């Protein structure tokens, strides 16, 4: 549905997007993850034909964004980082304006507007000035704007920024409900968000793609497994013995009060048995032994710090 190839964008001397390639299948929700200024918004602006790339190609639904922007624009719904709303218009006037911009035939217009108002739960505010609405409602008006023409592709740039927790979960629900009917690209720097909504993520750092994974294979992708041990006594000596085991990468322990050890190992099951044996041999009084799921957060920071050679 969306194909990006060797895309590069310079702003003067600054390289914003550096030779990235990826594709998105129909009906997929792709999370675009990266820090602020990593190049997420720039990529999205290129895909929506708002700005041209310095080099490389991108196509949406088979139409090239440089050669056939008109066809591409017709198929995309786009919510920029700051919702493009007119504070001095009523919600209904604004949606009517967007429907006209989108060239929705007037016979169909009313129906589409009502449908999108219902979908984004804007019924209560349809006759209010956008300028008087709260941030959450404004964001929803922005989303309604992107959905009004039933686009095949939705590009959402940080759609949940500035929303309160309840609104965030509503927005996620809305985005999830689009799954399978639409292709969605969704950018954020909040990790739990991609975990909650996306099928696949692309991590982008300083203009480069540093990882592309399906969301459920993320845990394994870290290439290490962490195990947490809680013991009654002598955490220090257990830790010493664990260090000498083959396949153990690092051991951290905490001895005062609560005796706790975190072992980082290669992801092999046999190592678990070895670890258990060591603990028993030391007569440490094992209370708990549990795998630590490599959190998305860790994974993400690893990727970025690995790349930069800085430990965070």
């Amino acid at each position, binding site marked *: 549905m969306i194909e990006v190839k060797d895309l590069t964008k310079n702003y003067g001397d600054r390289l914003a997007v550096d030779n990235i390639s990826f594709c998105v299948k129909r009906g997929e929700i792709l999370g675009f993850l990266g820090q602020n200024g990593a190049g997420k918004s720039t990529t999205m602006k290129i895909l929506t034909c708002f700005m041209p790339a310095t080099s490389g190609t991108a196509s949406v639904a088979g139409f090239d964004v440089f050669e056939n922007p*008109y066809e591409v624009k*017709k198929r995309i719904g*786009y919510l920029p980082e700051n919702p493009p709303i007119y504070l001095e*218009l009523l919600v209904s006037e604004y949606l009517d304006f967007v429907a*006209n*911009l989108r060239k929705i035939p007037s016979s169909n217009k009313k129906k589409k507007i009502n449908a999108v108002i219902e979908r984004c739960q804007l019924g209560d505010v349809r006759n209010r000035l956008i300028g008087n609405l709260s941030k959450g409602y404004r964001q929803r008006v922005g989303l309604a704007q992107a959905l009004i023409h039933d686009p095949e592709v939705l590009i959402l740039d940080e759609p949940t920024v500035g929303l309160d927790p309840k609104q965030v979960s509503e927005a996620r629900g809305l985005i999830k409900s689009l799954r399978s009917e639409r292709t969605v690209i969704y950018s954020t720097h909040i990790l739990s968000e991609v975990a909650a909504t996306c099928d696949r993520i692309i991590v982008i750092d300083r203009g480069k793609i540093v990882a592309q994974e399906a969301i459920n294979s993320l845990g394994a992708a870290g290439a290490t497994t962490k195990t947490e041990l809680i013991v009654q006594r002598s955490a220090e000596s257990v830790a010493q013995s664990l260090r000498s085991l083959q396949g153990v990468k690092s051991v951290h322990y905490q001895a005062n009060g609560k005796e706790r050890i975190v072992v980082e190992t290669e992801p092999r099951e046999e190592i678990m048995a070895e670890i258990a044996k060591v603990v028993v041999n030391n007569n440490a009084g094992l209370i708990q032994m549990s795998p630590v799921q490599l959190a998305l957060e860790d994974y993400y920071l690893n990727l970025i710090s690995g790349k930069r050679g800085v430990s965070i």
Partner: protein
Amino acid sequence: MRGSIAIVKKEVRTYFASPVAYVVLGVFLFLMGVIFAKFVALYQQYNMAQQFGQAQGITLDKLATYLYQNMAFILCFVTPFLTMRLFSEEKRQNTLELLLTAPLRESELVIGKFLSALTLMLIMLIVSFIYVLFMVLWGNPELKIIGSTYLGLALASACYVSLGALISAMTSSQAIAAIWTFIALLFLWLLQTLGNGISASLGPIQWGPTLVYISPLGHFNSFTEGLIHVKDIVYFVSFTLFTLFLTHRVVESNRWR
């Protein structure tokens, strides 16, 4: 074309949703009121002088010419307030992103913006028919001259608005757009005086008449005298089209920068 209509609808709605339209109309009518009061006083003087048999070649039509020349100048003041927000506000509010990612051609956008500000100008011209009404009720003006004057005013408005739109497209600050539009219009207006002051021709070009020709003032004045010259119409139309073309280019370039 549908895109342009959508833009015009939204813009006109925005003018009247904010104080802009009311303030501009109010200021315009106030200034015109002051000038019209002066106009009436002059007309009375003329009538009195005529009663004593010493009328001095001043007629109602001559006075109407002054009135409308003043009006064309006042429109210069008013235009920047109508055109300043056309593009600059879209840039500031990030709504240009909406317009340029919708299936809307840049030409539709530019034409829509131009027509919406022109609509407001035409509303002002229509409101000013009240002076024509007064003249008809208490005098005997030459209506054909007034007709040609209004044609001139409409053409001049189009040319002012196109220039304002161009300048608005070049900045994201309304204030800067307004100031530069005003300066540009004033400069064009003063070219007439400047050109008349240059008598010598420098090199092969006769600078004096050239500057006079570039200024809209002379072209407009012939309309107020009841003269509809093709060259004046061509001047206004080509000025407007060329400026709109430049505006189109500037809007297009927003995405390249």
